[in-house]
């Protein structure tokens, strides 16, 4: 090859390398920008759900209208009606309200407002017979209007609040009576038909309980199965078939596990429907192969010299595996488990089949209480007509993404920590 040819050859090689580099960077940029668009979309429409709009109302806790006095027990207070003083305060916002519009005026606050008043009074009993300003949740339509999620310039018959309500709202806003607060109830409330009251309390607890059941079942079973298959089982046809099946199970669509759960846990064993117990069982079945496979890989990666060293010292097979091999395989196993669990956390289809798609308006506490889970909550709210649920849907996705990111970073942390320690 002459030096001229050599030069052409080299140039060609450089060009190929640059081309490869360009395609690589192009693909990464594309992927990152799609992710960026997705996150921007979710965050921009979801962040407002973490705040709620309230109105400051002057309330007169009149003992005659409430039918209580300073000595009334808590139970009786809870049973008494706070509606009258609430309506009185609302009607006072505009004393010239025509009779027909009064109902519209009363509707500017949430249906929960009367209970909010009751809760306020229970904390401030000294306010009896006094006039005090209380912040009450606005109806979801005005909440959305205030957050700018709903345009104010469309015709009255095409929006869910009237011109009269809009006028009152604007007046109050001008007097700084409309305030924005952090939406704690979004985290503590269960689902509701009223968007301003709906929260992820039920689905958050449901997800945690479901994952707990899933972890308790799948982690020990998965690890023991992996250790036995990898270290003790004789290598024959049966173990080969088991191995192939485990690998196949990891690829089975999750909805199939849902059908299995429906057929076996609900219809055969009559376990309670819509509960984290059954959800956890189904997800455990799904997660098992996803724990067994990384655990076996981690065991396989332990150098044989470690096993030989222990065996040569007269350690039994079980001692060798439990004292020396398993601890080395733990980081890989743990990160595999966490990633399996984070997949389970995001699973929707199998849980819908076992009835976790039901409308649950109480926060569950035990694995046998009916409950929803976060991804199913997203699915439920995304179907709802009210505009207030749009931001809730995105906010739930934000929470879900937060948990997934947290779990995955914990997996990476574990892996790095233990790897650094022993190599």
């Amino acid at each position: 090859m002459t030096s001229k040819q050599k030069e052409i050859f080299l140039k060609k090689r450089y060009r190929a390398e640059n081309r490869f580099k360009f395609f690589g960077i192009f693909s990464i940029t594309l992927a990152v920008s799609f992710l960026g668009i997705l996150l921007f979309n979710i965050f921009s429409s979801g962040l407002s759900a973490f705040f709620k709009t309230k109105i400051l109302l002057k309330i007169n806790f009149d003992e005659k209208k409430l039918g209580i006095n300073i000595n009334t027990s808590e139970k009786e207070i809870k049973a008494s009606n706070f509606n009258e003083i609430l309506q009185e305060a609302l009607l006072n916002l505009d004393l010239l309200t025509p009779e027909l519009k009064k109902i519209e005026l009363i509707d500017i606050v949430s249906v929960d407002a009367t209970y909010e008043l009751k809760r306020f009074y229970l904390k401030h009993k000294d306010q009896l017979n006094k006039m005090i300003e209380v912040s009450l949740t606005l109806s979801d339509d005005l909440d959305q209007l205030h957050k700018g999620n709903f345009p104010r310039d469309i015709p009255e018959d095409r929006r869910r609040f009237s011109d009269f309500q809009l006028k009152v709202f604007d007046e109050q806003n001008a007097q700084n009576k409309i305030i924005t607060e952090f939406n704690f109830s979004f985290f503590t409330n269960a689902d509701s038909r009223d968007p301003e009251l709906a929260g992820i309390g039920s689905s958050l607890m449901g997800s945690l309980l479901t994952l707990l059941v899933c972890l308790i079942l799948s982690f020990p079973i998965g690890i023991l199965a992996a250790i036995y298959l990898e270290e003790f089982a004789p290598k024959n046809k049966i173990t080969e078939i088991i191995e192939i099946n485990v690998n196949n199970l990891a690829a089975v669509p999750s909805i199939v596990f849902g059908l299995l759960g429906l057929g076996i846990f609900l219809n055969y064993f009559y376990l309670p429907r819509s509960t984290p117990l059954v959800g956890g069982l189904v997800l455990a079945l799904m997660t098992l192969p996803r724990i067994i496979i990384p655990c076996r890989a981690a065991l396989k990666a332990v150098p044989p010299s470690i096993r030989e060293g222990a065996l040569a010292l007269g350690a039994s097979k079980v001692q060798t595996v439990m004292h020396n091999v398993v601890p080395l395989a733990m980081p890989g196993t743990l990160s595999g488990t966490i990633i399996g669990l984070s997949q389970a956390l995001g699973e929707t289809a199998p849980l819908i089949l076992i009835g976790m798609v039901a409308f649950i308006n109480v926060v569950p506490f035990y694995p046998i209480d009916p409950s929803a889970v976060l991804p199913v909550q997203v699915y439920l709210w995304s179907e709802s007509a009210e505009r207030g649920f749009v931001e809730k849907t995105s906010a739930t996705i934000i929470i879900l993404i937060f948990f997934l990111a947290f779990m995955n970073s914990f997996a990476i942390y574990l892996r790095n920590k233990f790897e650094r320690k022993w190599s």
Partner: protein
Amino acid sequence: MINEKIKISTKNLNVFYGSKQALFDISINLVQNKVTALIGPSGCGKSTFIRCLNRMNDVIDICKVEGSIKIDGDEINKKDLDVNLIREKVGMVFQKPNPFPKSIYDNIAYGPRIHGLAENREDLDNIVEHSLKKAALWDEVKDRLTQPGTGLSGGQQQRLCIARTISINPDVILMDEPCSALDPIATAKIEELIDELKEIYTIVIVTHSMSQAARVSQDTGFFHLGKILEFNSTEKIFKNPDNKLTQDYITGRFG
């Protein structure tokens, strides 16, 4: 020499890996408190042979060992024998240093712990110190016993493995090319150590280095293609071997 006691004797030892025969009719006697070197070209069966002596070949599914291996006159190549007891008596040091991913202390304490050799913490501390001293490692590591054994240098790791083997007080120490992964200085240290250890233990060492065999051993066996061609005192083998092939191998003409 009349007062020589035979520690290990093999008779008609045949080893198969599946259908392939790796050792053919090995019948040799290894003498107590001597260092026996096994030399020969790669793949000649030296390692297979010493792995028979502590039944490490049991780990390999397809490996079949036939014939008689006696340690102190007791047959060890029989099915119903607890291999863990043999391995307690016959320790082994491997080609690549393989400390456990534990602290230096726990590396040594592991053997005594699983065999219940120490009654209390003090006993265990003594065993660890004693073993490390015998392996000539104590002075280098006494201040960092809690640090991982994997953090030591290659030569130190190998001495740690020797200390680990000593910790359960075996009769025999098998060494499978213990210096092949080490630099010359670390090698010299280990050879020196072997020389001291033979006072207490019977040592069998597989080596590729002729000079090492000549330096450390009293007896030498020359393996070739799964057969033992010559087994004699080291002096005889290196000065005046009976076999032409042995002569060629030790002078570097083949292998």
